[in-house]
């Protein structure tokens, strides 16, 4: 197996192994979890940049109260596509599909996932879904203009290409289900000897909880979107009110998945945070079991809160109270995580390196997202701010300020492991400063605008909102500048980055025990695990002695 270029005894890394197929086929037909993870990374980044561009253009449009750069219909398709791409093709898959694939087998001491071929099929379905989403843009009829929620009856009436967009979301959901199924089986069956449930790294715990939501919630949206397709194609009466259907029932069905999907989005990013904090604080994580259980608690309670998206749609008072109460309840496990992370940092020997900086942004921004979420869960406030920029600001704080920054943290943390190279840290820190300032300049005005009554998705707005809109647009420029510096820096590092060691950060989880990048089969011999994942007792002892 060893090629002459490689020293005897050292296995070649997974980029350089000899494969049955050559060139691009050795990637797109590979069943290696690491290659599949990188395939996802490339595909998802492509869609991420496309959706960022759309968001950037939408902010430009909002510079003036009247039309600025595009027509109203174009604006409608912009926010629809921005939503569909960001939700289904970026925030949902980015952490589980990329880092879950690449890292879970390494972290639990396995050679691959349980169903490697199914894993490849998931990626192919993902690509197929992405292509369908793109075709909906270019087919005659024009891109969908329903918003990413596809609410009926408009999604049944509109003449735009809703069907390809719906089928795209359905296919992406199928891909997500298969990934979740694969991870659950992998985590149950392939942990290294000695790694019991409470010796698993917390990223694995978070991925495990996420996978359950993927498996149990996604089919609901699958069937719901499929029913809208069938309704459009054959005129079957299901949700269409002219045929006796109930559009509110559609909204229930839609949010039964789409609210748990919020936790598919945020939980893996929380797992990333739980990995990074102990490494850069040189401390054993505080409250390991609480963090692990809180992931499961979020997954469970998060499945029971969907109707808080519908307080103004029409529901019994009892229903509203119950869903409002459950919404408050789900804040508890999230808060448990925040407190434990901060408690881990307390008295740690903190090394403010790039991944930790992104994590700190995550904690602050996710907290703002969480608190504004509680405000929305309160019935009276909800009536006031429903369908305003306040809601948009809230979920961007969670989706982007949370998961987006969690992804930035993850890519900066695991980049040396995935590519064997280290990026330029100064530039990465500049990018962090710009991204954080830009993000908050962009979305704090959203919260204020919404509270003042600026409705979401509107093309025109009242002149008194202009200053805040302009501040937000300037924020989007700073944010995009930060993103450009961040990703150029990472791309440059692929070629010019300095070579890195197996464990550049001093991590204690299993992925840092193998070479960077890892060999094809990860572990020469499956390791036997004897301690918990964040055993920093040696550092703690040293610091105590120093005192």
């Amino acid at each position, binding site marked *: 197996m060893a090629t002459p270029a490689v020293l005897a005894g050292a296995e070649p890394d997974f980029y350089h192994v000899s494969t049955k197929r050559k060139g691009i086929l050795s990637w797109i037909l590979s069943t290696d979890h690491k290659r599949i993870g990188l395939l996802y990374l490339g595909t998802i980044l492509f869609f991420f940049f496309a959706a960022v561009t759309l968001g950037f253009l939408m902010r430009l449009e909002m510079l003036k109260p009247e039309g600025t750069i595009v027509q109203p219909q174009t604006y409608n398709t912009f926010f629809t596509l921005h939503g569909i791409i960001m939700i289904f093709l970026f925030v949902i898959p980015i952490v589980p599909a990329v880092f879950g694939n690449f890292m879970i087998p390494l972290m639990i001491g396995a*050679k691959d996932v349980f*169903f490697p071929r199914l894993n490849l099929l998931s990626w192919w379905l993902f690509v197929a879904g992405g292509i369908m989403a793109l075709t909906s843009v270019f087919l005659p009829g024009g891109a969908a203009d329903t918003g990413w929620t596809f609410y009926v009856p408009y999604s049944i009436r509109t003449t735009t290409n809703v069907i390809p967009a719906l089928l795209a979301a359905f296919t992406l959901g199928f891909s997500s289900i298969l990934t979740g199924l694969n991870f659950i089986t992998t985590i149950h*069956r392939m942990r290294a000897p000695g790694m019991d449930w409470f010796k698993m790294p917390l990223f694995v715990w978070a991925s495990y909880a996420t996978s359950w939501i993927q498996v149990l919630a996604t089919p609901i949206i699958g069937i719901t979107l499929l029913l809208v397709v069938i309704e459009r194609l054959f005129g079957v009466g299901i949700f269409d009110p002219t045929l006796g259907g109930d559009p509110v029932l559609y909204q229930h069905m839609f949010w039964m998945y789409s609210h748990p999907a919020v936790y598919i989005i945020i939980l893996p990013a929380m797992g990333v945070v739980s990995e990074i904090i102990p490494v850069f604080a040189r401390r054993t994580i505080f409250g390991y079991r609480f963090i692990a259980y809180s992931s499961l608690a979020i997954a469970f309670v998060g499945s029971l809160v969907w109707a808080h998206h519908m307080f103004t749609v029409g529901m019994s008072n009892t229903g509203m109270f119950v869903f409002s109460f459950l919404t408050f309840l789900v804040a508890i496990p999230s808060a448990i995580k925040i407190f434990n992370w901060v408690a881990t940092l307390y008295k740690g020997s903190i090394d403010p390196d790039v991944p930790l900086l992104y994590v700190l942004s995550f904690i602050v921004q996710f907290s703002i997202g969480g608190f504004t979420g509680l405000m929305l869960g309160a019935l009276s406030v909800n009536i006031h701010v429903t369908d305003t920029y306040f809601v948009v600001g809230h979920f961007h704080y969670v989706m982007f300020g949370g998961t987006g920054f969690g992804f930035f943290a993850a890519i900066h943390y695991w980049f040396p492991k995935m590519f064997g190279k280290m990026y330029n840290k100064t530039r990465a820190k500049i990018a962090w400063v710009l991204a954080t300032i830009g993000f908050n300049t962009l979305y704090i005005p959203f919260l204020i605008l919404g509270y003042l009554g600026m409705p979401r998705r509107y093309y025109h707005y009242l002149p008194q909102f202009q200053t805040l809109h302009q501040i937000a647009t300037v924020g989007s420029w700073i944010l995009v500048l930060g993103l450009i510096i961040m990703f150029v820096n990472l791309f440059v590092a692929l070629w010019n980055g300095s070579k890195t060691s197996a464990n550049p950060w001093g991590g204690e989880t299993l992925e840092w025990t193998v070479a960077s990048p890892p060999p094809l089969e990860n572990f020469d011999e499956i390791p036997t695990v004897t301690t918990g994942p964040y055993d920093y007792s040696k550092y703690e002892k040293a610091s105590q002695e120093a005192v």
Partner: protein
Amino acid sequence: MTTTAVGTHAVGHVHRDDYGSKMGMWLFLFTELILFGGMFVIYAVYRFSHQAEFELGAKELDTLVGTINTMVLLTSSLTVAMSITAIQRGNKKLSMLLVGITIALALVFLVNKYFEWSHKFAVGLYPQSPELLTKPQGEILYFGLYFVMTGLHALHVIIGAIVLAVNIRFIQRDIITKDSYVKLEVGALYWHLVDIIWIFLFPLFYLVH
């Protein structure tokens, strides 16, 4: 030393874990149950709000054909279960025959379904038909759900039959053997799912009073 090292390495390659494979299938079955579960929820909501019309709709269905199809599917679950016992006892031919009978029963089911549907079309009970549009909205919903749910179920019958056909090939080529038959078990699990969904569809559409 070398032998053990090579040994562990090789184990990673020919990794076999039947329990895990079945677990994967069970998880997939959960997703299928929830997929249909979504439709059962819609059914429950509309039946609650349109009791009388659902009863009228059910009168249009032929209970006898439905009963026959239920018998057919239940029998097919029996034969597929027996095929596993046959392969466990090393009786390759019998196992193939039993899977074959299962597929034949699936075809009987589909043929029945075909006649049932064509009858509905003949009397004008199909989506957007002038006949159906004159009926009360509850009946439109009833027949909408009837076609979608039994149609999606029929699609699952077809997929299940294809899976079983592939399994016959596997038995023939000794990929499924006396000692390694998890593929057949997994296929049979899927078939039982197809069966159990019908067990719920049958009373909900045919036996409404």
